């Protein structure tokens, strides 16, 4: 497991050592800042709300969940496809560690980065709590939903990225795959459990409204586990293909 942490630590530093990490952070902060201003402004115009804080944070996190579909694959592309293309992947593949540890390390590295971003985004709830009495439970569930959503996209992205060395295909493929994954919920005739399971945006919205179900967390964990397992499989079989 220490090998996974070593990889995670390096990847995290790698994000900050190159423009990628900073640009992604800029995008996320800019979008969330703008959104916060807009939603707060609208709320002021409306003049009344049952729980203004939940409303603000709900729309903020809901929107971030969308944006992440386009931001997260940049990171999975970097740690997998780019490393495969540049040959740095061989450093890990040549070390006496398992494929599982490599995949886990890459997953944790990206999650570490987004956890820091998530922590910094707490500035909004803190700011809000100065002026109003928020429902902390709703708010923390919203953040939990944000992190779980990111985890799901990271695992799907890692799987797609492990299939290709081409950065563009990796990025577009991941975005496309996540969208396909989401929209497969609307295919007619799909069983209800499936429709509920793949619509991670809806699950995230549920959480940000303060509805915590064991099943929704379990669904997230199942998605993450499935795709990390598939990525591990792809990495492992690389030895036997080309």
């Amino acid at each position: 497991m220490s090998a996974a942490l070593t990889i995670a630590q390096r990847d995290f530093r790698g994000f900050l050592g190159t423009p990628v990490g900073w640009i992604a952070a800029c995008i996320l902060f800019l979008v969330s800042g703008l959104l916060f201003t807009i939603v707060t402004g609208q709320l002021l115009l409306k003049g009344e709300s049952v729980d203004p804080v939940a409303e603000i944070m709900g729309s903020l996190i809901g929107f971030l969940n969308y944006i992440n579909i386009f931001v997260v694959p940049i990171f999975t592309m970097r740690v997998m496809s780019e490393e495969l293309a540049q040959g740095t992947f061989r450093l890990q593949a040549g070390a006496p560690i398992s494929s599982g540890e490599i995949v886990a390390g890459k997953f944790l590295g990206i999650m570490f980065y987004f956890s820091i971003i998530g922590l910094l985004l707490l500035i909004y709830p803190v700011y809000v709590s100065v002026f109003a009495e928020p429902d902390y439970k709703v708010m923390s569930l919203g953040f939990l939903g944000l992190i779980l959503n990111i985890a799901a996209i990271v695992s799907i992205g890692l799987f797609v990225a492990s299939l290709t060395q081409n950065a563009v295909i990796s990025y577009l493929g991941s975005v496309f795959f996540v969208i396909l994954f989401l929209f497969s919920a609307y295919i007619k005739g799909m069983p209800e459990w499936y429709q509920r399971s793949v619509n991670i945006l809806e699950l995230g919205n549920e959480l940000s409204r303060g509805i915590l179900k064991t099943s929704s967390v379990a669904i997230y964990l199942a998605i993450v586990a499935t795709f990390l397992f598939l990525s591990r499989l792809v990495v492992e079989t690389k030895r036997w293909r080309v």
Partner: protein
Amino acid sequence: MIEVKDLMKLYGERKVLHGLNFSVGVGRVCGFLGPNGAGKSTTMDILAGLLGPSDGTAKLCGLDVVTQTREVKEIVGYLPDNPPLYKEMTVVEFVKYVAKLRGVPANQRKSAVDRALADCAVTDVANRLVGNLSKGYRQRVALCAALVHQPKILILDEPTEGLDPNQILLIRGLIRKLAKERTVILSSHILSEVQATCDDVIIINQGQIVAQASLADAGTSKPSVIFSFADRTDAALSWFKEKTFVSKVELFNEKPDSVVVNFKDDFYGDAKKANMVQVNSQLVQQGFGLTSVYEHRTGLESLFFDAIKNQSPAVRGQA
């Protein structure tokens, strides 16, 4: 130390290795020589545990690369042809990261990193970003990362590719130094490279071993001698033809005023120096206008071209 038996690799339908058989002894530097696309890198990848063979076995220190991959990776240091480097890290950060990844215990890590940096002569750039270094330095940093965990076997895939002559000399010296304590396999398509650094040579072409020899047998201990003359080259040629200690003499095709002479086996050995002195003084006495004498080591070159031309597996000398 390294035992390879019937090693085969298929990429889809295409067979890139057709059953390689070779072994490398402890403390030897073995050169893997072959034209581009001969299967050198594939073999190296298999030995380093990065690629699985389609058939056959490869054992390093008795450990099988297929069933004991992890153990094999622990004792192997591998420098691929495209050196894996993180450009945004400093040299020392990078080497430390590889040491950690390779499982060097925390209390020995600093000394291991320092030693590797010193061995590869990159201590002076330790705090610079890898991305800002010259190609020669990058190659040395990659080599440094390959040996930070003190591997018993070092596998180097074209270690001097794309370097300037000065840097090539540096890397060669480094390889010779490193070889004192470990077994080294290096691949190259440059003849002089192998000649300068290796004890044994394996020539591979189109996925087959076409020749295997220790460099001493590959003709290097019995060089041809090239004599150049001011004017009477033809007279010198016929003079050599009459001598019993000469096995072959002909005009040198690169320089018309010179002759290439191969001596018989008993000419070499302990008496070689005295014999040469005698030949030279006789040439001067004959008044052929001798201008220069030098040894020409064609052994490896001819071995290589013969092997590639014939393409039939042949084992010459002993490995």
